[in-house]
Structures are given as structure tokens and as C-alpha cells.
């Protein structure tokens, strides 16, 4: 069998695997309890974020530990809308407790769902573009950039906690009731929200797949592997990096916005330093540089976490710490990389069998 045939066969199997995964997710309401389904919906939202982070980290080599901030902005935008709808024109409860007399002007646009949804995507993109503009153009990169994104997380959470009257402080924003007049807790609404999240995941996946398989994606990988060479070839790496950082922030915003519906609360502790690192872990475990890896990593790690924490809540930090170390030191390419090497091993074995039985080596065939 020739290389091209083999590749075609591989691609066919890949497509079948993707379709099977999608089918399993679409059919999930049939075999999962309501509780598990809403958990899965939350994890699907996380998987959306993981795809965006993978685009940035796996493909462009920029590690942002500030994805929690963009996730948070998206989530807060949607939470503000839901809160306003729940209070029905009255002042949100936490504002009353903190002695804020009237709704601040910047809360006003969040009376409308479409404005909230739009801002949930645009605000993270804008913030990322600003930060990217001020760092990438000065060739601040690598770990320096990563540390700055961590600082961004710290100031965002401090700000959210400090401005309690406007943001709900440590408690965050919660107690939602309806979306567009339908009760959120109603099973039919939950089901619709699940499918919306799943479709968003598929949409984001296809968008990113299109990005990374295009010429644009090649430039991204080139920046990751040798930024100066890309610069010498006449490209402007900073522009590409700002763009891709902004896209990944927008994707994180979408994830945040959707997760609010499933979790029912957004608070600073959900977007802090540790959750932001956990987001990087999703991608690292699944496999950097493969989009499906990010999805698998986010789903597997979160599913594991919820099972694990139900059984032994105290053990989770040990487990997560150990996973971080093991994945980074032993499995830099994650689950997908592991699967690949297993496949390669079996491939090589069958290959050597063929050679022993006298058939031509594969490489020669492809040359001819």
C-alpha cells in the first residue's frame, strides 16, 4: 500500500472518528441524566476555550495564562444580562447591599441579549488586541509575555473583588431566572442550551481548523518554530500574533458566555490564577498543536475532575500537580501524541513484517 493511499485511509478513519464523536455528543441527552448533561454542557464550553488556547499556544507558541480573564469577561457580560432580566428592572441585590443608588451607565447596554452576547466576544478581543499591541510589537515574548498575562489575571480578580458594588465582589453574579422569558431551569431550555453550546463548539472547531490548515496557519507554525526567520522573509510576526491572540480571546469569551448558562454563577474564584493554569493543562494533556487534542483534553480532564472530586475532594490538588509534572516532562504531546506514537509503533512493526516477507519498502514505492 502506498503512502498516499495510507494517508487517504488515515484521513477517512479520522473523519469517521470525528463524526462518531459528534454523533455521541448529539445523542448525549438520550443516555445522560440531567445532572450529567449539564456537566457535559459546561465541559463543552470549556472545550471551546481550549481550542482557542491551542490555536495560540500549540500552533503559535504563545502561552497565555490569562485566558481566565477573557473567559471571565465573556461570562460577566452574559451574567449581567441574566441578572438584569432576573431583577426585572429593579437594582441587582448586591448593588443594594453595597449602597449603589442607581444602575451605572455601563450596565445599561446589558438589558439586551444581543448586546451582551456581542460584547462578550468583542470586549475580550479588544483587551487582547491592546495587550498584544503593546507587547508583541516590542518583541516581548516567551515567558515575559506569559508572566504579564498572569499579572493581568491578578489585577482583574482584584478589581472584581474590590469593586463589589458594581461586580458582586467575591460572591460574583448569580441567582438568574430566565433567558428571553424562558426559565433557565426548565428541561427544554436546558436541552436547547446544550445544543447551542455543542453547535458553538463545532463552529469554533471548524473555524480554527480552517485557520490552521490555510496559509495563515502555516505562518503561525513558522512563527512558533523560528520567529526571526519569518521576520526576515518579510512577514510581520507581531501582526499575526496580535490577531491570533485576539481570536483566542474572543473564543474564550464565547466559552465564558455559554458556561454561565450551565453553571448559573460567575465569580472571581472561577477565573483566577489557578483556573487559568488549569486551562493550559487541558490543552497540554490533550496534546498541543492538535485541535481535537484540546477538545479531548478539556473533556477528559474535567470529567475526571468531577468524578475525582466527588470521591476524594482533598486529593485533587495532588492529582492536578502530578498531572502537570508528568505531562510536561514525559508526555509533551499529550494524549493525542501518545495515541500517535502507539500507532506509529504498530505501523513500524507491520512495516518490518512486510519487508521480511520480501515486499518493497514503503518509501521506495512513494518515490516511484
Amino acid at each position, binding site marked *: 500500500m502506498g503512502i498516499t493511499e495510507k494517508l487517504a485511509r488515515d484521513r477517512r478513519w479520522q473523519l469517521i472518528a470525528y463524526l462518531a464523536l459528534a454523533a455521541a455528543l448529539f445523542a448525549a441527552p438520550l443516555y445522560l441524566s440531567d445532572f450529567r448533561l449539564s456537566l457535559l454542557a459546561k465541559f463543552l464550553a470549556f472545550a471551546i476555550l481550549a481550542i482557542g488556547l491551542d490555536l495560540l499556544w500549540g500552533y503559535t507558541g504563545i*502561552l497565555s495564562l490569562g485566558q481566565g480573564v477573557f473567559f471571565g469577561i465573556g461570562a460577566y457580560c452574559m451574567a449581567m444580562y441574566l441578572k438584569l432580566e432576573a431583577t426585572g428592572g429593579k437594582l441587582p441585590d448586591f448593588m443594594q447591599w453595597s449602597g449603589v443608588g442607581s444602575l451605572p451607565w455601563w450596565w445599561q447596554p446589558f438589558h439586551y441579549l444581543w448586546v451582551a452576547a456581542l460584547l462578550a466576544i468583542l470586549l475580550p478581543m479588544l483587551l487582547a488586541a491592546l*495587550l498584544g499591541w*503593546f*507587547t508583541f510589537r*516590542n*518583541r*516581548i*515574548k*516567551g*515567558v*515575559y509575555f*506569559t*508572566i*504579564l498575562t*498572569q*499579572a*493581568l489575571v*491578578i*489585577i482583574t480578580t*482584584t*478589581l472584581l*473583588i*474590590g*469593586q463589589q458594588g458594581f461586580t458582586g465582589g467575591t460572591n460574583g453574579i448569580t441567582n438568574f431566572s430566565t433567558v428571553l422569558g424562558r426559565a433557565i431551569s426548565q428541561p427544554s431550555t436546558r436541552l436547547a442550551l446544550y445544543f447551542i453550546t455543542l453547535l458553538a463548539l463545532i463552529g469554533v472547531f471548524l473555524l480554527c481548523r480552517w485557520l490552521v490548515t490555510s496559509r495563515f496557519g502555516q505562518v503561525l507554525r513558522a512563527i512558533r518554530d*523560528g*520567529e*526571526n526567520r519569518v521576520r526576515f522573509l518579510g512577514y510581520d510576526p507581531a501582526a499575526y500574533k496580535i490577531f491570533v491572540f485576539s481570536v483566542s480571546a474572543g473564543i474564550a469569551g464565547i466559552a465564558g458566555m455559554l458556561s454561565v448558562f450551565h453553571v448559573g454563577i460567575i465569580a472571581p474564584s472561577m477565573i483566577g*490564577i*489557578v483556573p487559568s*493554569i488549569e486551562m*493550559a*493543562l487541558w490543552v*497540554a494533556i490533550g496534546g498541543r498543536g492538535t485541535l481535537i487534542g484540546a477538545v479531548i483534553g478539556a473533556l477528559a480532564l474535567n470529567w475526571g475532575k468531577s468524578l475525582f472530586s466527588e470521591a476524594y475532594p*482533598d486529593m485533587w*490538588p*495532588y492529582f*492536578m*500537580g*502530578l*498531572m*502537570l*509534572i508528568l505531562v*510536561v*516532562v514525559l508526555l*509533551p504531546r499529550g494524549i493525542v501524541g501518545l495515541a500517535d506514537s502507539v500507532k506509529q509503533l504498530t505501523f513500524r512493526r507491520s512495516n518490518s513484517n512486510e519487508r521480511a516477507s520480501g515486499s518493497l519498502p514503503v518509501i521506495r514505492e512513494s518515490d516511484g
Partner: protein
Amino acid sequence: MALVLQQILNGLSVSSILLLIALGLAITFGLMKVINMAHGELIMIGAYTAYVVQGLFTSYLPESVFDYYFVIAIPASFLVAALFGLVLEMTMIRYLYGRPLDSLLATWGVGMILQQLARSIFGAPNVAVVSPSWLNGGLAIMPGLVLTYKRLFIIGLVIVCLLCMFLYIYRSAAGRRMRAVMQNRDMAASLGISTRKVDAATFAIGAGIGGIAGCALSLMGPIGPALGTYYIVDAFMVVVLGGVGKLLGTVLGALGMGLANTLFESLTDASIGKVFVFIAVIAFLQWRPTGFVSLRTRALDTSD
């Protein structure tokens, strides 16, 4: 006038603590390009060492010598944290040289484990370390302006640490080897320097200084498993601001961060102040992207 002076003194005090924390980072990051996110937990280990030493003094020694426990606690913190650092380097960090982002994630994992370990051993609530009585009280400089002995002591401790670091790096044979490895690793190795040993020793020293920082922090208030997390990102900002490779940069970076923090927090409030500090750091990096002081290099692609 007194108010302005008080703010400046507060700023210096914050700077001195940041400097003590960032000093250890500057060594590991400057020399080895390893982002040690577990540094915060090494600080925590130093602080708990002080707590244990204090506990031993109260249980086994007469009350009259209790005040001198701190004299033992400082070297003990250094040694315990350095030992942890050495083990960390030999088992994990050595496989991560040249992969700074990976080292960041892996050391964060180590940090999480150490934090949870501290929680299981010492319990989740904070514990208080009783300061020696000779550090209570303060120096009245003028009416309305008091500099507590604790803060003075920490400033003094930082100066002593800086001095020792300076002597070690610039005036000792071991320091010369360290600088050689830092400037050109391959060349140093060719000249017969064991870069493995230099790396291990350097990492251990950086970790030990973190331990001393933890010991000093135990004077400032109760200590808990998450003690280091509060400071770690600020300390890394100091390193980014100061530039890597020179002690002077770290000192300037710490002064800058400490003074900016107090200035903006006194002008606005604690949460908005943080935002302004961040904006100030970004603005500063527009002017000097590699920090206050940076080693000149002609290399285009550095290993970061």
C-alpha cells in the same frame, strides 16, 4: 510631609520584601532561564521552618533564650528550602532546561503539591509566628512617623543578603564559574566547568534565599499554605521590570514595583491601584522592553 515620608517608607518596606523574594527568582531565571513557579512554595517552606523552630524553642528550651530563636530560624529556613530546591533540580528541573514555558507549568504543579502537603501537615488555617520581643516596637523618626523594628530588620536582612550575593557572584571562585556558565554555557563546559554541578548549586541557592524571604514574611503576619501565591506574580514582575542577568536590575525593579504599588494604592484604592501598576509596567516596557538593566548580547534567538 510626614505623610509623604510615611508612604515612601512603606514603599521601601514593600520593596525590600519583594526584593528578597525576587532575588531568588533572579538567580534561577537569570542563570538558568527556568521559571520556578514553586518559588512561592519555597517561601512558604521557609516560613513554616521558622514556625517549627519557634515551636521547638518553646517546647524544649528555657524561656530566656526564646528571643534568639530567630537567629537559628534564618539559617534553618535557608537550609531547608535549599534542600528542597536541590531535590527539585535533581529530579525534575534538569530535564526542563531550554523549555522555560514547560518549566513554568511543571513547577506550578510542584507548587500545588507542596501547598496541599502543607495543608495536610499544618492544617488549612493560618498559623501565627510569635516575633522575638526585641523586634517589637519601632523607631520614632518624627511625630507621626514610626518605622517599626520589624521593617527595619527586614530592610537590613535584604541588605545583608544582597551583600552576600554580591560577594558570592562577583568575588568567589564558585560565583565566577556561575557567571561563566550564564554567559556562555558551551564555552564554560569546554573549559572544564561542570555545568551540572553549577546548575544544581545555583538552583539550591536561589531556593534557599526564597526560604529566607519566607522567614522574614513570618514576621509580618500569620502564615498559611498559600503564603507564596500572593507574592509570586509580583516578584516575577520585578524580574521582568528589572531585566535579567544583573543584581542591580533586580534591585531597581523591586524599588520600582514597591514604590509604584504604594503610590498608586495611596492615590486610589487597593484594587484600582493594581490596575495602574500594571499599566505603568506595560508603559515602562514600551520604553525598555528588556527591563532596567539587561545583559548585552549579539545573539538574535535567545533560548526563551
